[in-house]
């Protein structure tokens, strides 16, 4: 193991003709973590993954996966990395357990069949013909095949795109099982809730560049968004009987008062001092909300409020 890093990407660039798809991507995936490459469609997620999987040779930059160069050592990589591509069919006449068993013969140290069926929750469907599986079950069979060789690392390219909520939930459960097995997982998605729910760390990829990397919390903070502090507007404040707290940009919106702060500790102290002075107690309904990944993401991808509005009231 190279310094606990399963995947290392340095200044990765990719062009198709004159179109630059990746413009210098850097990130690392550590052993045992679930790492999510989050970004809108067309950001370059799949291209990045295909380079890491050894299907494409990058225009420039270095890539190491499990200490290997994917383009040059594809065969060795495939013994140790499982790959779930976006859309990939099964042989038409195959049955679930039979197909998994066939896949197991491709690898030097396969996982036991029963174990695989259990991890992806397909034990009851073991004798079902593949073409009779639901979309969610097919995806979980994808997982089982990718896990057949007991890989150290699993690539998942947009694992739940187009699924109904129940199918997504079961898919997520299967990915949680991968984490429990100690697998390193690199997944791409354009779903925020998926990244937030599954990932230990996230990189936001937009237009071929990594905008931010870190834990969900770090990404939100790095995004430069403020913590939201809100409380029920005290009656005295609403009637204008007491002044607004000094040094805080407080917005009174009917029954709720809201402010945003980059330094929530200080703001809270000021607020509570003010409340004490005006005999408002501990402020009913006081809530401190960390900036969410969604806020950061929407702002970065240009579909949400910008920084200038961070201090204002947002829905």
């Amino acid at each position, binding site marked *: 193991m190279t310094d606990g890093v399963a995947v290392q990407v340095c200044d990765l660039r990719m062009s198709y003709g004159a179109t630059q798809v990746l413009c210098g991507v850097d990130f690392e995936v550590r052993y045992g973590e679930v790492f999510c490459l989050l970004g809108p469609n067309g950001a370059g997620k799949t291209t990045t993954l295909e380079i890491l*999987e050894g*299907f494409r040779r990058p225009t420039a930059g270095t890539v190491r996966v499990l200490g290997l160069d994917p383009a040059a050592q594809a*065969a*060795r990589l*495939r*013994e140790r990395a*499982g*790959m779930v*591509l976006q*859309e*990939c*069919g*099964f*042989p*038409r*006449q*195959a049955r679930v357990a*039979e197909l998994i068993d*066939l*896949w197991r*013969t*491709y*690898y030097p140290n396969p996982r036991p069949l029963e174990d695989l069926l259990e991890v992806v929750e397909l034990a009851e469907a073991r004798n079902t013909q593949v073409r009779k599986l639901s979309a969610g079950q097919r995806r979980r069979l994808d997982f089982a*095949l*990718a896990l057949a*060789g007991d890989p150290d690392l699993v690539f998942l390219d947009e694992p739940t795109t187009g699924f109904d909520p129940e199918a997504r939930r079961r898919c997520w459960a299967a990915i949680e099982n991968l984490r429990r097995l100690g697998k390193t997982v690199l997944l791409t998605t354009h779903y925020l809730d998926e990244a937030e729910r599954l990932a230990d760390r996230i990189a936001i990829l937009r237009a071929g560049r990594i905008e931010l990397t870190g834990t969900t919390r770090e990404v939100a903070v790095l995004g430069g968004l403020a913590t939201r502090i809100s409380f029920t507007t005290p009656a005295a404040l609403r009637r204008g009987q007491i002044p607004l707290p000094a040094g805080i940009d407080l917005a009174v919106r009917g029954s709720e008062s809201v402010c945003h702060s980059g330094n929530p500790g200080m703001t809270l102290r000021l607020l509570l001092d003010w409340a004490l002075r005006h005999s408002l107690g501990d402020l009913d309904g006081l809530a401190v909300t960390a900036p969410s990944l969604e806020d950061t993401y929407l702002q970065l991808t240009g579909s949400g409020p910008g920084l200038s509005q961070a201090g204002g009231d947002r829905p």
Partner: protein
Amino acid sequence: MTRSVRLAMGQALIEQRSFWRSAEYALFTFVFPLMILLLIGAANVGSYLPGTHIKNTTVFVPGILAFGVIVAAYVNLGSKVAVLRHDGVLKRIKTTPLPSAAYLGGLLASTVATAILLAAGTGLIGWLAFGALPRPGGLLALTGGLVLGIVCFGSLGLAISSVITSAESAGPVTYASFLPIAIISGVFDPTFGGLPAWLSHLVDLFPVKSLAQVLQNAYAVRPFPAWDLVNLGLWAAAGATFAVWRFRWHS
């Protein structure tokens, strides 16, 4: 190397199992040629080629042998690979450490097995029902002809799979691209004739008639089919070249 061979054999077994499980493949591949053999064969019992002492069935049975080889090697392999590619199964295989040669070797071995079974079935029925047997010393020519036919039409099958753009059109395209040629090559009718000269020459250029004549030579003494052997070799080489040039693991 031995591991690749073992993997290829395992793949071939799985292919055979799924072949026999699938009505569309197994039925069309086996029932169609054998049905034609029995029906048209029955119509030719007791007839002789005009002006000769050669029974119609000794020419017709090897003609159906050729037809069977083409169905098993060309239609089956061609549409199978096209469907596998279109469904993304070939792409999925590339995510595993299975060597490409082992996978394709397994597909080809399964195709060869199907072709041999079909040829054996055709030969057996031709013998039992119509008394058609290879001429004395013709067994070697028969074996050689079958091998050459499987190689030639197998490589043409791989080649056409790269031209097929959807899974739905795989069967129709493979059948439609040889059935008309098979008909005007006289595969189904030992007394077939009367083509305009230019069309007759054109048919000679296709490998269907060549394979039929090579196999007919193993049943009834006819002029040594030198041109037909060369023609099959040329088509095999052309098919293999095109297949290698155009082969893709994804659609």
